[in-house]
């Protein structure tokens, strides 16, 4: 199914949760924050949130200083 991750359309497997998506992407839970359809999802809730077609997912983390654009 198609979803938007960090502003880009991607095809991901059906019926997975946010925590499964993060694992598939090889990301470290401790270092990222997930926004699902503009709602911030707490780390402990990631396994409960099922991803649906056309969902908008932002995966962000910190980096050095300067300017950035997520919006």
């Amino acid at each position, binding site marked *: 199914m198609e979803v938007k991750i960090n*502003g880009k359309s991607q095809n991901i497997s059906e019926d997975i949760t946010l925590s499964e998506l993060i694992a598939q992407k090889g990301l470290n839970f401790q270092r990222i924050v997930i926004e699902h359809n503009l709602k911030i999802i707490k780390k402990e809730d990631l396994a409960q949130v099922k991803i649906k077609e056309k969902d908008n997912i932002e995966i962000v983390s*910190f980096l050095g200083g300067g*300017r950035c*654009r997520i919006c």
Partner: protein
Amino acid sequence: MQDLLNIADKKISNRLFIGTGKFPNKPTIKDVLESTNIEVVTVALRRVDLTSKGDNILDYIPKNCLIMPNTSGARNAEEAVRIARLAQAAGLGSWIKIEVINDNKYLLPDNLETLKATEILANEGFMVLPYMNPDLALAKRLVKAGAKAIMPFGSPIGSNRGLKTEELVKIMVSEINLPIIVDAGLGKPSDASRCMELGCSAVLVNTAIATANDPINMAKAFSLAVKAGRLSFLNGTSIETEYAKASSPLTGFLRDDN
């Protein structure tokens, strides 16, 4: 007695804050922070690059540092609030440097949007430090809105042009009953020293250190300059006079007309 800077719930002894952008590599950030005993650092929040598995900036910031995320990239209050909430969700505490910029040429902050974001986030319990164009009336509104310190710029971000806003910053120091922290544009240690001599509570430096030939030495130079300026301020600035005043006695010269 130790000269500590109180901001919100923190007591800070090192008045040089450092931004972590533009460094040649992450280990250098760590070396700079450790060698200069930096206590407050800023970081940015942005989308994870899903195509590369780089290590994380947080691994290079000593545990005793207070991390102050900024809202760089925000073009209005709404975006700044969104970034601030995401940063808080990362679990690094509730300090946030509000940065709202919609001018790409000079990167000057939008004061009205900054005020809006400050009002919202201070209400939510954030420790808000707004980066702003040094305007006294706006600074007073930021105080009312619940800001914990005010961060006027010295000159445009990354320009290394120094304290071009000196007269306005002086007014802020005199009239605003919150720490004034000059952020942006300080290019030389003497710029930082000048800010501290004027009574600013701290300075935030990034570009001048990160892009120096030797960032560790430059950070040391800035650190010494901040300390020197602070000591000078605490001592009280010397009085300027129009004409010379001899330092040596004006009697007993080795000449006949004495």
